[in-house]
């Protein structure tokens, strides 16, 4: 039973560029959430997708957008990258509104 998988594992971009991160949820899970984690801090909630729609959103600008596909996989897009967007981006899946989150290993994004 595959867990949550994220790609790529590492990414280096320059300011102003755009990036797309991908996530496949754990088998049987239909809800995907994205988090940004700066070094030494707790994860910050970006948004959650359920039934291909954004259900909740954290305090992130519109430069952060996402998508969920019919197979429940998801993408996180960040436009006009800033140096401050450098972080570990985590994807978590769950079943419906379940509180138990299963995380992937994350994508480490560095913006130069």
């Amino acid at each position, binding site marked *: 039973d595959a867990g*949550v998988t994220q790609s790529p594992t590492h990414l280096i971009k320059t300011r102003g560029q755009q990036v797309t991160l991908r996530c496949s949820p754990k088998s049987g899970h239909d809800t995907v*959430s994205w*988090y940004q984690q700066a070094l*030494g*801090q*707790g*994860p*910050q*909630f970006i948004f*959650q997708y359920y039934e291909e729609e954004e259900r*909740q959103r*954290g305090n992130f600008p519109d430069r952060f957008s996402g998508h969920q596909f019919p197979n429940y996989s998801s993408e996180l897009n960040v436009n006009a990258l800033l140096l401050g967007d450098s972080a570990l981006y*985590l994807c*978590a899946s769950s079943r419906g*509104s*379940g*509180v*138990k*989150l*299963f*995380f*992937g*290993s*994350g994508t*480490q994004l560095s913006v130069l």
Partner: protein
Amino acid sequence: TQLLEQSPQFLSIQEGENLTVYCNSSSVFSSLQWYRQEPGEGPVLLVTVVTGGEVKKLKRLTFQFGDARKDSSLHITAAQPGDTGLYLCEGRETSYDKVIFGPGTSLSVIP
């Protein structure tokens, strides 16, 4: 706005020692989760507590939910180097609430 605080922020102890970390809020939670995260990895769920006063044990780890469901503690007995990591608490007022994590307690267990 819900806010979770964790203490201490950093903890460095010798192998075999006991320790307790805390998670506090002014909000009442319907559930509270504890996760452990190792460097370069995503958080891994340790436990969920839902009832005020509830105590759950996971081997050498003991989790307690406050009677008023506003706070929680994690106690580790006879810490081992494998316990090293970032311990995160996460609470929700309802299951439909936005997920909010505390800032974490970074634990280092020295052999």
